[in-house]
Structures are given as C-alpha cells and as structure tokens.
C-alpha cells in the first residue's frame, strides 16, 4: 500500500490529522506502564497546548516572543493565589486569571507588536523577565522563590486528582486547542496572518489591518499559555517562579521551532520530544546540559525547517521525485 498517501491524508489538517491525534491520545495509555509515564504525558500535553498557541504567533504571524513563559507563569500564579489564598472556586479562578492575562496581553501587545525582528525579541524577553521578577519578589502573594502550594482542581464536589483523570482532561484540551488553531489558520484571519508574515506592508496594501491581527493572535497565544499554566499549577499542586523564567520561554520557542514553524502538529511533536528528552538525558548526569545544547544546535543546523515539515517534504519528494511546497504539514 502506498503509505505516503495515507500520510499525506494525515497531514491534511482538519480531517485525518485531528482524528489521528485523537486516536493517539486515546491509545497512548496502553503504552504507559505507570504513573510516572502518565506524568510525563501530561506535561507533554500542557506544553503542547502552549506551543500550539505560540506557533500561531511565531509560525504563522511571524512575530517572535521570548517571553511566553511569563504568561504561563501568570496563569499558574493567578489560579494558585485566587484558589488557594482566597478560596475561590478553581474554575472561577481559572477564568478570572485567563481574562486578566488576556487583558494584559492586549494592553502591552499594542505597543510591543509595533516592533520588528530583534527589537520585538528584546521587548518580549524583557516583559517575560519583568513578570518573573515580580513573581519572585512579591513574596507576600507569591511565596517568593520558594513558590506556593495549590489546592486540587475541583468542580462542585468532584475533585480532579491523580494522573489518570488529568491525562484525559489534558488530552481533550489539547485536541480542543489543536482544533481551534487549525480552524483559525484556515479562516480569513489565518490567511491574513500568513499574508502579513510574508510582507506587512503588502498585507496592509490589500486591506489587512496588520496591527489588529497581530494583536489578536498575541492575545490568543497568551490565553493558551495562561490556561495551560493554571491547569499545570492545579495538577502538580505546587508552583515556583521557574515556570515564568527566561529559560522556560526559550524551551517553549525551541519546541515550536524544533517541531517546525507554521505546523500545528509540529508544535505538538516538538513539545513531545523536548519534554521527554530531559527525562532521558538525566542518565547523562553532569553532561545533561551539554548534550541538550548540542542536540539543539544539531537539529537546527541539519533540520532548519523543523522535524515535521522536513519529514513531510522528504515523503513528498520521494513520492513525486520533485519537492512539493504544499506538503509542508499544517
């Protein structure tokens, strides 16, 4: 059978791809022997949700952010503080936090997104670091560098506890995130984003409000990060400022680029590989950082387009002997 046709079908985003992801999520527990593996899978899912949102911003709209861990951290701390310190119902805390983060992204996004290239990188990086410093310093609310514990997520009398329940919650939310992203990309908004990616002036000439579109996708990606942060805090029951740190921002961007820019499934693959990798690398002990850094350089040098688009391209060229641009997975 020509497996390449099936794969092309799977790469078609809203039909086969989503189904394949759903089947993968449904079947994965068969391969997870104990709760440690469930734990890793949940972390993969949470990172994947952030990356799917971040990929909309970096991959499609072409706007880099080196500060998205800040939004993740705000989501985590917002939920932690409201639900734990002030006893809000976790769902209300999550919603209120999400709205607040969206508002913040909307307010700071407007001036920041006027910047281009390295200046935008600097501004988002700075924003992330400022958020990190506030979370570390305002220890009256945040518990400082030691972090704070978070109550379990409960709706009414039902508490979400244990890896198995969380696995399904995160799995369903990841599907939802991917579905939302794919629909956005195929909508007129998505086409507008890609247009302003290739040329902002060109896009404005044909009547696209570049500033509004960039701001919208910035807010969306911040919301994805914030929700994942809130859930992650409730899941692990503890949150420290490292969740908002510069290094976490870098990890998130690396996941997106590693998987493949402008590829929603690439973002999921990138999150999966780079979340699992450190677990495997712990056997290198002292050499862990070196190996991780070398792998980062190596993949970017040899697969500058990211894993998923590179593989899709390879399969396409094998099928037709001519590289096909449309085969860069969505």
């Amino acid at each position, binding site marked *: 059978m020509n497996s390449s046709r099936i794969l092309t079908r799977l790469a078609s985003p809203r039909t086969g791809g989503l189904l394949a992801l759903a089947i993968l999520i449904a079947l994965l527990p068969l391969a997870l022997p104990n709760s440690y593996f469930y734990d890793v899978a949940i972390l993969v899912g949470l990172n994947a949700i952030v990356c799917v949102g971040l990929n909309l911003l970096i991959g499609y709209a072409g706007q880099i952010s080196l500060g998205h861990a800040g939004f993740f951290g705000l989501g985590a701390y917002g939920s932690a503080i409201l639900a734990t310190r002030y006893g809000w119902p976790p769902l209300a805390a999550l919603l209120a936090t999400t709205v607040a983060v969206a508002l913040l992204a909307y307010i700071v996004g407007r001036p*920041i997104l006027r910047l*281009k290239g390295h*200046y935008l990188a*600097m*501004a988002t990086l700075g924003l992330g*670091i400022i958020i990190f410093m506030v979370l570390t310093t305002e220890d009256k609310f945040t518990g400082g560098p030691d972090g704070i514990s978070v109550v379990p997520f409960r709706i009414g009398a039902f508490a979400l506890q244990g890896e198995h329940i969380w696995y399904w919650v995160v799995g369903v939310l990841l599907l939802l995130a991917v579905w939302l992203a794919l629909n956005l990309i195929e909508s007129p908004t998505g086409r507008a984003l890609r247009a302003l990616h290739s040329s*902002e002036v060109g896009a404005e000439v044909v009547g696209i409000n570049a500033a509004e579109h960039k701001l919208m996708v910035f807010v969306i990606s911040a919301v994805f990060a914030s929700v994942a942060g809130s859930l992650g805090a409730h899941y692990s029951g503890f949150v420290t400022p490292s969740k908002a740190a510069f290094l976490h921002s870098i990890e998130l961007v690396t996941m997106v680029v590693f998987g493949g820019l402008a590829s929603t499934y690439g973002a999921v693959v990138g999150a999966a590989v780079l979340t699992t990798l450190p677990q495997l690398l712990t056997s290198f002990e002292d050499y862990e*950082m070196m190996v991780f850094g070398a792998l*980062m350089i190596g993949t*970017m040098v040899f697969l500058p387009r990211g894993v998923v688009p590179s593989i899709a391209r390879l399969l396409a060229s094998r099928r037709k002997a001519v590289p096909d641009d449309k085969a860069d997975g969505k």
Partner: protein
Amino acid sequence: MSAQFVQYLLTGLTVGAIYALVALGFSIIFNASHVINFAQGEFVMIGGMATVSLVAAGLPYFFAVLLAIAAAALVGLALEKFAIEPARDASVVTLIIITIGASIFLRGLAMVVWDKGFHALRPFTGNTPIAIGGATILPQSLWVLGVTLLIVLALSWFFGRTLLGKAMLATSHNRLAAQLVGINVRMVLFLSFGLSAALGAIAGILIAPITATSYDVGIMLGLKGFAAAILGGLGSGIGAVVGGLVLGIAETMSAGYLSSAYKDAIAFVIILVVLFFMPSGLFGRRGGERV
C-alpha cells in the same frame, strides 16, 4: 551633588562599562551577520572562569589573562565554524535557537570543566578604595573604566583606519556589494565572532574581581548586554557604549534610591519604555520595509 549620588554614579559607570563591552560584542556580530548571538554572555563567563583556573594553576596573572582571552576567542571562532556557518541560510528564529543552544552547551561544558561554585579573582592592583569627593572607588573599577575606554578607542581606530576594519564595516552596510568589491565576507563573519568573544572575555575578566564569577554568570550579563545593544540601537558602536552606561547608571541609581529587589528588572523596564517611543533604539537606523 551628595556623596551618595557620586557613589552610585561611579558604581553605575563601572557596571555600565561592562554592559557596554558585552553590547559591543553583540553589535559586531550583528553587523557582520545579522545574527543575535545569545551565547555572548558565555564568552564573558569563559573569560572570568578561565582566568580564575589558570591563576589557580600557578600561571602568572598577566599570561593567565591573555590565555583566557585567546581561549574565549577560539571558542567564538569554533562557534561560528560549526554552528553558524553551516546554518547560514536559516531564518532569524532558527539562528536565535542555535546560539541559545550554544550558550546552554557552553554553560554545561563550564559546569563539567570547572564547577558550580562562585570564584573571586584577585584584583589587578590592590584593593584599597580610593576616595573621590566623599565617595570611594575601587582600583579595579578604575581598571574597568580605563580598559573600556582603551577598547572603545582601539575599536574606532580599527573600524575607521584599518583595511580589515573597513571591510567589516562595508560588509555590515551591504553584504552583496562588499562581496562584489572583493571582500571575503565569510572571513569577516568568522573573524567577527573571534573579536566579539575576545571582547566578552575581557569584560568577564575585568568584572570578576568585583562581583565574583561562576558557570552561570553569563545569562544575566548576556541579557543585559543585549538590552544595552538594543537600547543604543542594534549595530551602532556609539549606541552600544551609551546604552551600556545608561543601563548601568540607571540600574545602580534605582537600586540605591528605589528598591534593590527590582535591580535586575530595571534594565528591562527602561528598554520597554524606550522601545515604546523609539522602536529602533536611541541611535538605531530607522529601517523601512521593502515590498
């Protein structure tokens, strides 16, 4: 002017000079290649750490310093050869990830070669504070300021008066045109990494006696240097120096008069405020977009 103010100013100038050196490293590489080298802070770390270990190994101070600078320059050249050069045509984000990967690699390497501890370097000449108008300044601070001034003068001579320097400048203005008049732009790119790394190492050695050094000292120094380079306007030499000094002074003043808890955040608050009003930094070229 109160003595306290003078004290903060002197401290700020010292820190700012270090930021300026790091920022110059960012600008030189950016000019040659349009790459932001996030591993710039690791050169600073290598300079300090290598000097510490070479001095501990019994080498005369002066040779230890020279060797450490040479070692950092070699690392810079190797970085260009093995990580940047093979990915020449990659996108900006990809190149950013590569240099961040390099910085993680170098930090990991430093952790293995040396250790996780803090190390203080002996000051170049004595440790007796010198009184200036009610304030005091460490001899090492004078070294920092003096060497930075020398380097700035040397660089302006290099870029203004020597063939190689002019070739690098030409490459930064228009790569293709430079290539057409016979400049070896790949060599320029290669050398720019060596030069930046050497500058970073010098900064690391100068500051090590004041703040101590460790394997992860490069993260913050690198980010502040980047902030200084952006504040001045990417690629502008004067901008890098002014940006560094402004950040250093602002940081020390706000730590002294406002809150020391947010000392490290000040640089980024300033950069955000400046970028809101001047999207290309203080001295940056205002670039239009070609369609």
